[in-house]
């Protein structure tokens, strides 16, 4: 289990005064302090960790966020920003002495500008909500994390979320133009805007992916893109992970950048097929889902070329979709992967590391050895084009020993990712989950550099406590 810091006794002792102070700042329904109503906020997508917070506030405007931040700064209260609570790394896990700042009531789309291809939305708008608002005009918002039906853009900014299509369209950071943020001291700042280039320091780039450590994001200006004429997927199944990996290299090496290039290993194929009946070949060791875009003729052109390349790698089978329905069926299994694994195992940990794609086969081989050694099954989903690996480790949460093994196994996988030249997290963030592994990727000097930047924004270290940075060795002891 990951250690948590001791709550500040001074804050806990003043709980009633703090709640009363918050009630002065917000509408009546905007402050939650009753134990039973705090319960839903005790965890996020990393549900193995739970902690009921001191209070929850649900502001409706940037000004209310600023008032809450100024108050908490004055009172020395730690603040945990929260969107939809879908973080898989515990990025929104409360602390006992913290106020959870929920942004879900800030859910309005403020402006859509098709001529300038941007939209201004509040932090609590869902990822899919942006695309839904603009798709009538043929536009979309590109990053598409698996949780896109629920997750909110404020959380996407803080985690720099990716998705299945970032090989072509980039991650959140590549699709933002501006932010409205509130500092730890309660000041409102505008970063960027509707223009494409910043002069001066790239605050937008630094704040994106900063996991709530630096500021609270209340509004986001996103780039919206005109959708392609169409898209189509194909399946290619191979006899080994090595061969599938070599085929990915050959596709990219040919100069084609598909919009999506997804890889599944044998356990993932079986789990997804049993769940979705997508027609995945069960005799294959590895499966690629490849998607291209353009007019029908263009799709045919790219798919013909890709099929020709795949053909050189002795595929078990290939299937090119002939319609939107068939493409949907091909994606159905992949998009349902988490649910599929959930069906065959009582619980699973969804890991997220990145590796150089050339090391895929080697890494999967070693994960297989670890799986045998730990006695825990694992299914691997991989954004093959960009090296982002998602091992799903299956365990039983009712058995503390099984959970402990799963966590240790997961940590070993992430250490392996770093060892082969990759990193601890590709798109889920560090949160609390990988906090204590940061020393595997960074030196103490590098972590100190990052801590100083945190201090430059948040001198009192009140924002999203105990995430990202390893707790100092000298954890404060209970009084």
């Amino acid at each position, binding site marked *: 289990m990951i250690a948590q810091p001791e709550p500040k006794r001074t804050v806990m002792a003043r709980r009633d005064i703090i709640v009363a102070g918050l009630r002065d700042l917000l509408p009546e329904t905007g402050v939650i302090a009753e134990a039973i109503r705090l319960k839903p906020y005790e965890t996020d997508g990393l549900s193995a960790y739970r902690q009921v917070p001191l209070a929850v506030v649900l502001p409706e405007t940037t000004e209310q966020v600023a008032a809450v931040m100024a108050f908490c700064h004055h009172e020395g209260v730690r603040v945990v920003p929260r969107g939809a609570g879908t973080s898989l790394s515990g990025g929104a896990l409360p602390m006992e002495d913290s106020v959870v700042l929920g942004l879900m009531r800030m859910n309005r789309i403020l402006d859509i500008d098709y001529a300038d291809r941007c939209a201004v939305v509040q932090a609590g708008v869902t990822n899919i909500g942006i695309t839904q608002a603009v798709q009538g005009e043929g536009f979309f918002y590109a990053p598409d994390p698996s949780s896109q039906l629920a997750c909110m853009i404020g959380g996407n900014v803080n985690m720099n979320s990716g998705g299945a299509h970032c090989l072509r369209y980039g991650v959140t950071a590549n699709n933002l133009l501006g932010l409205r943020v509130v*500092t730890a001291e309660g000041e409102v700042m505008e970063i960027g805007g*509707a*223009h494409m280039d910043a002069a001066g320091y*790239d605050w937008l780039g630094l704040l994106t992916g900063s996991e709530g450590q630096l500021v609270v994001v209340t509004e986001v200006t996103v780039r919206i893109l005109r959708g392609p004429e169409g898209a189509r997927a194909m399946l290619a199944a191979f006899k080994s992970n090595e061969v599938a990996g070599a085929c990915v290299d*050959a596709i*990219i090496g040919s100069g084609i950048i598909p919009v999506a290039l997804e890889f599944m290993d044998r356990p993932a194929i079986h789990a997804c097929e049993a769940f979705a009946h997508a027609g995945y070949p069960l005799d294959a060791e590895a499966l690629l889902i490849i998607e291209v875009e353009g007019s029908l003729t263009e799709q045919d052109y790219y798919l013909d070329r890709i099929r020709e390349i795949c053909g050189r790698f002795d595929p078990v089978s290939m299937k090119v979709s002939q319609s939107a329905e068939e493409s949907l069926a091909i994606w159905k299994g992949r998009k349902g992967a988490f649910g599929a694994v959930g069906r065959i195992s009582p619980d699973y940990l969804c890991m997220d590391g990145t590796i150089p794609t050339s090391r895929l086969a080697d890494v999967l081989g070693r994960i297989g050895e670890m799986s045998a050694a730990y006695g825990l099954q694992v299914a691997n989903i991989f954004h093959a084009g960009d090296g982002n690996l998602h091992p799903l480790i299956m365990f039983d949460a009712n058995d503390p020993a099984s959970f402990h093994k799963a966590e240790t196994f997961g940590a070993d996988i992430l250490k392996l990712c770093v060892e082969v030249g990759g*990193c601890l*997290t590709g798109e889920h963030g560090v949160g609390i989950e990988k906090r204590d592994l940061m020393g595997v990727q960074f030196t103490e000097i590098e972590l100190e550099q990052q801590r100083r930047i945190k201090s430059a924004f948040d001198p009192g270290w009140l924002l999203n406590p105990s995430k*990202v940075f390893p707790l100092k060795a000298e954890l404060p002891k209970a009084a």
Partner: protein
Amino acid sequence: MSEIVPTDAAGVVAAVAEAYATGTPIAVAGNASKAGLLRPVQAARTLSTRGLSGISLYSPQELVMAAGAGTPVAEIAAAAAAKGQHIISEPPDLSAFYGTSGPATLGGMVAANLSGPRRVMWGATRDHVLGVTAVNGMGETIRSGGRVLKNVTGLDLCKLLTGSYGTLAVMTEITLKVLPVPERRGTLVLKGLEPGRAVKALAAALGSPYAVSGAAHLPAAMAARVPALAWLGGSVTLARIEDFAPAVAYRTERLKVELAGYGAAELLDDGASTSAWAAIRDVVPLVSEAGAVWRVSVRPSAGPAVAEAVARAFDAAWFMDWGGGLLWIAGPATEEAHAAVVQAAGTGAWTLMRAPETLRAAVAVVPPEPAPLARIARNVKAAFDPKGILNPGRMVAGL
């Protein structure tokens, strides 16, 4: 001015550590090919990274290349071209613009975060910096990012250091994402549009499903200075499509139909397209202008109003890229002209790109940060460079 030219990263560490110990400011540069950009630095010594030259990793099938910060951009481009790839943000070659001969380095390209026409579709240079190794103002080596395309581990210092002009840390090695060079290019040219109509046409092109990767407008006088465009006569409005040959043929044809309301478009072939966009990228129309040159980034639809405002204030030469979202403006090197550009830019971003040293030292060369952010900027500068020895005053006076 004395110059230190370390040949390895340890040499950079030693040089900065010594400067830190003695509190001596140093000018950080590659070959100083963009020394004419932003503010002049007052420092007795220059630390050049040009000795840190060479490609250390190139894995075309993984789309990654790593090289020493002093590696000439041309060397990177040539190595990538040999494998059919390129730096997709199309960073400009400003050697003619600044009249410098030393080759631009990778470190300088990243430190200035300059992006070319493809910014509208493929993002800025900062979007393709995957990893950085740098030495902060205390002589400590810090790494951020890595050699993989997706990485959200810790704070993204790659983006912060990109565009920081050597004021936070001295970059020693940089890893870039590189992408395949499209098989073919094609450019549609609409003739004789005034700026307002031109930007509307470009918005229609950029808002089409045909993946337009360049969108520029040059008034007649500017187009006349680009050989690939001069023959067209009059103002030109250009939309570029890059992809496999059949896709380019199909999409340019469709886009031509979609833009029919703006006039009959001519089609520039692959060669003419390449040279026209290289000229736009490298600011060729303004190279021979005397006086000052500014770069202004605004919301694309605001581009024509900015051009109109500066033209009212002084005798301006200008052209637009990024569908109207980027203006290159030349005018008199005076504080009055500078103030007019700043006012026209409004809430957009602006940079004084080229001017005599006196003007560069006298005015803000980038927009001043508002109060809370100015405080944070000072804190962040101190977090990297507590004694203020790295490129002091390069971006902002006193920082």
